[in-house]
C-alpha cells in the first residue's frame, strides 16, 4: 500500500539556520514526489516536485529536495531559514499517470524563532 511518513511532527529552528524536513515513502511503482507548504487557514502551495532525472531538485523560495531511492526518502532542505518560512509542510506521493490517488504525509509544522 502507498504511504508517506513524515517522522517530525514539529520542528523549531532559529532564523538563518539550516533546515531539513524528512519524508519517507512506500510506493509500488515509480513515484512522483512532491513537497507542499501550507500557511495557516490556507490551501497548499507546491514547493517542488520530482519524477526522474537529477535527484536533487530545486524549488521555489530557496528550497531543494533530494530523492534517495535506496532510502525511499525525499527530504526537503533550505540553507538559511527566514521567519516567513514558518508553516506546515507536506510531502506527497502520486502516480505517474493522473487519475489516481495522491497521498500525503501527516505534515511537519515549522516554527522559526528570531
Amino acid at each position: 500500500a502507498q504511504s508517506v511518513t513524515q517522522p517530525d511532527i514539529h520542528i523549531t529552528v532559529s532564523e538563518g539556520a539550516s533546515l531539513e524536513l524528512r519524508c519517507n515513502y512506500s510506493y509500488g511503482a515509480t513515484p512522483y514526489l512532491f513537497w507542499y507548504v501550507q500557511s495557516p487557514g490556507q490551501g497548499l502551495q507546491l514547493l517542488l516536485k520530482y519524477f526522474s532525472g537529477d535527484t536533487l531538485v530545486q524549488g521555489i523560495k530557496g528550497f531543494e529536495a533530494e530523492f534517495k531511492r535506496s532510502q525511499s526518502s525525499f527530504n526537503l532542505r533550505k540553507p538559511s531559514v527566514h521567519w516567513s518560512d514558518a508553516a506546515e509542510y507536506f510531502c506527497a506521493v502520486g502516480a505517474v499517470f493522473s487519475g489516481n490517488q495522491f497521498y500525503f504525509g501527516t505534515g511537519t509544522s515549522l516554527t522559526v524563532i528570531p
Partner: protein
Amino acid sequence: SQTIHQWPATLVQPVGSPLSLECTVEGTSNPNLYWYRQAAGRGLQLLFYSVGIGQISSEVPQNLSASRPQDRQFILSSKKLLLSDSGFYLCAWRRQGRLTEAFFGQGTRLTVV
C-alpha cells in the same frame, strides 16, 4: 490560467444537519478532482476523487458523499453531519495525463456543533 474556487470558506453547522461544499475549476477541461479532509495533527486524508462526470471513487467509508454533476464541479455532501465531520476540507484538481501536480483550493473550515 487555471483557478480553483471553493466555498464557503467557513461553516458552522449543527449535528444532524445536511452539508454541501462546492468546488469549481476554471480554465481547464476534464480535470481530475479530489476532496481531502485535514484534521488537526492528522495530515491530509483523501476522501474522494473523480476522473470524469459521474465517476466517483471513495477512499474511506464515512458519513460523506461526493458528486460531479458537471465537468469542472465537485460537490461534497452529507445528509446528517456528525461531530467527527469537523475539519478543514480541501478541494484539488490535477490535469489528465502524466507528470502533473495537484492544485488546491483555499479550503473550507467546517465546525459541527
